[in-house]
């Protein structure tokens, strides 16, 4: 609380960039923000879904019974809109079968039985000089790392590195906002892997032929700004800037507004206005992996919430089941919600066999007490208070959209009220004093519209 008060009173924070609207949920980052990244032991079994990214699933190149080495590719990209998958640990492939995932439906996953007691050192690598690589080589190398947006969207990174021909990217934005409450993954990465972060930024700039790069973070992470500033190159092409702490500052559209005062057009890409936006964790991974020709085999995950005893930031191998993490870190049995991602946009899991995937930056365990306060609230009719209109970062009219959704007029929601511009940040549901599940309505409306479009 004190630091939040300090930020409000200190005049130097008043003129930082931001975007209009948005909300200020309790940050709850103090539980884990000060804890350095630690390692967890290997789980006995890793579950590696073939579809951890937006786009086509990867094609497996291993068969049950085959031995693999930590870092070795086990599935290849299926076309351009796809990425390969690497073995996060040394062991033997047990099976390729349907397993539950955070998204809901069971998906085809490679099950890897880990050799116990194996070292966490990566032996499968090949050094190379990134400075000598051409733009096409970098894009290809990034695809080979299997990297996707680690902020949560899991969009393949190399696709962002190849903007449409008529779009010229002049500025690379590195997104270190991490506006979700509780999560401190990106914060720790910026503090501890600043060197990799800067290296990755340079690689992105080279691949896109961009003139400059801005690393943006919220002003509740000023220590990270200091840490990065110490590692910046002298030529001034990369800068680091703090913006005001506000949810959902971490959305790329909001970051473009706050740092560059540019609006990414509705239905367009960041490259439409000459930008490319990458998450800090992805950038740091590129900086670390490209020189050694490695693959994404682990990621930093914040394990937090009142239901966890040993909260902290952990470097977790991809595919580690949630059950194993909770076993390791002490789990209070009264948990009511286990959420992958943050509390505003994450998803609840129904099975502890769900693994950590590339896009998952946090495991949040809320206890009975946190959930009860939520369940005891009754829903009222809309009182037109306009709180949602003032919260919506996209300047939509959630109040009107909610009324239409209640009447199932999904077509009109899209044709007159820009439903598809909603990126489901949940600010409207958060502020609604009547507890109307607005964003939930919009998700239903959007999927109903998609189904309809598919049929016709």
């Amino acid at each position, binding site marked *: 609380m004190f630091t939040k008060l300090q930020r409000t009173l200190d005049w130097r924070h008043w003129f930082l960039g931001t975007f209009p609207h948005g909300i200020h*949920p*309790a940050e709850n980052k103090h539980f884990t923000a000060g804890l350095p990244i630690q390692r967890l032991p290997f789980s006995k079994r890793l579950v590696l879904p073939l579809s951890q990214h937006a786009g086509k699933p990867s094609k497996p190149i291993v068969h049950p019974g085959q031995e693999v080495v930590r870092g070795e590719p086990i599935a290849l990209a299926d076309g351009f809109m796809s990425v390969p998958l690497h073995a996060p640990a040394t062991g033997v492939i047990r099976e390729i079968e349907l397993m539950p995932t955070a998204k809901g439906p069971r998906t085809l996953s490679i099950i890897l039985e880990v050799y116990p007691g194996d070292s966490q050192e990566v032996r499968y690598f090949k050094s190379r000089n990134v400075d000598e690589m051409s733009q096409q080589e970098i894009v290809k190398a990034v695809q080979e790392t299997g990297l996707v947006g680690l902020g949560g969207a899991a969009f393949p990174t190399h696709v962002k590195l190849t903007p449409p021909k008529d779009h010229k990217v002049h500025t690379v934005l590195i997104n270190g906002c991490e506006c979700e409450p509780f999560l401190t993954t990106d914060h720790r990465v910026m503090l501890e892997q600043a060197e990799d972060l800067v290296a990755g930024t340079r690689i992105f700039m080279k691949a896109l032929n961009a003139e400059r790069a801005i690393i943006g973070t919220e002003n509740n992470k000023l220590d990270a700004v200091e840490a990065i500033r110490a590692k910046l190159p002298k030529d001034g092409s990369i800068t680091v800037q703090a913006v005001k702490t506000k949810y959902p500052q971490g959305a790329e*559209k909001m970051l473009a*507004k706050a740092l560059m005062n540019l609006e990414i*057009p*509705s239905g*367009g890409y960041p490259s439409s206005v000459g930008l490319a936006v990458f998450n800090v964790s992805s950038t740091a991974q590129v900086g670390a992996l490209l020189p050694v020709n490695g693959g994404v085999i682990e990621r930093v995950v914040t394990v937090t919430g009142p239901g966890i*005893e040993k909260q902290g930031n952990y470097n977790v191998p991809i595919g580690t089941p949630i*059950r194993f993490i*909770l*076993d390791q870190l*002490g*789990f*209070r*049995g009264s*948990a*009511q*919600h*286990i*959420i992958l*991602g943050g*509390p*505003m*946009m*994450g*998803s*609840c899991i*129904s099975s*502890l066999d769900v693994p950590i995937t590339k896009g998952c930056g946090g495991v*949040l365990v*809320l206890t009975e007490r946190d959930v009860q*306060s*939520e369940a005891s*609230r009754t829903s*009222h*009719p*809309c*009182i*037109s*208070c*306009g709180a949602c*209109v003032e919260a919506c*970062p*996209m*300047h*939509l*009219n959630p*109040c*009107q959209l909610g009324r239409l959704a209640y009447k199932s007029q999904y077509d009109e929601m899209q044709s007159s*009220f*820009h439903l598809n*511009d909603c990126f489901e940040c*949940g600010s409207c*549901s*958060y502020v609604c*004093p*009547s*507890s109307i599940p607005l*964003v*939930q309505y919009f998700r239903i409306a959007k999927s109903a519209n998609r189904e309809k479009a598919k049929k016709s």
Partner: protein
Amino acid sequence: MNKSASRSPSQETLNVQLHTSPYLRPSASVEVIMRNVVYALLPICMFSVYQFGISVLALVIVCVGACLLTEHFVCLCSSKPSTTNDWSVVITGLLLALTLPPGFPLWMAAVASIVGVAVGKLFFGGLGYNVMNPALVGRAFAQAAFTVPMTTWVPYLSENRFTEFIPSSLTLPFLRPIPTADWVAENAIDGFAGATPLALMKFEQVPTDSIQMLLGTTAGSSGETSALLILLCGAYLVMRRMMNWRITASVLLTAAATSGAFYLLNPEIYPDPLFTLCSGGLMLGAVFMATDMVASPVTPWGIWIYGAFIGFVTVIIRLFGGLPEGVMYAILLANAASPLISAATQPKIYGAVKRKGGQ
């Protein structure tokens, strides 16, 4: 936490709930907001009781009671759970009482409450669906049905206000109000003229000192006299982020600007802007009634237009209409127009692209 509380999840079935995001909620709910509006109205009620005595206390109790009973009864009739526990109907009762003259017959107040809540709110579907502010619907009904008691004023701070009722208050149901002229003559201090500052200004061109109107030492409806107190109570709600200050600002600014323009044209006949702001029900209307969430627009521009409409129409009615006061009709008109205003002022979305051609 003791060690035994931590268990291994692999050994037992988990009792987890599945929801969709967001999982966090702040504490402000409809009940909390409405309750805080009631808190904000209480000082105004107390000041009114201090000023006009037990008659106002009875008026407040009757209005709130009648509103609560009406809502409860209508909910019972339509076999729905009672919605009285969301506090919104208490606000309606308080606001209605505050807009009535202090000596208003109690039975008429009860009728106005019933009409306001039943016709103005519940017939439309209850909280959230009413087109107009129910308290003002009740008052408009009273204005039309009981014209004489609605314009009968009593002196403030009369000596035995805490020991005896204003005679007209205790009129028996369905009878004409007891005339108060004798009582007023007995109790009036420093030559009370039996009129509010607005009526004095309109019909006799006698201005009243603005300081008096700010502090509330004038005649008028029970809750409208002290502009300063109303502003302070409104400030509390704004600080709690439970009221839209833009509506209030827009109403007051437009009213000041419009009356200022007329004042500059002819200072002899038209009142100055400060008089306009402090007199009559403008302050109470701007702070507590125009800001009624249900009946006001939600769009950013719509809010300013709505407020400006109220401010402008109020001044026009006051200066050129037959009535000395126009706040009530201005707000009711704006309430009726607010869906239109909302529809006409849809916010411009982030990254809006101009659509080419038709569609």
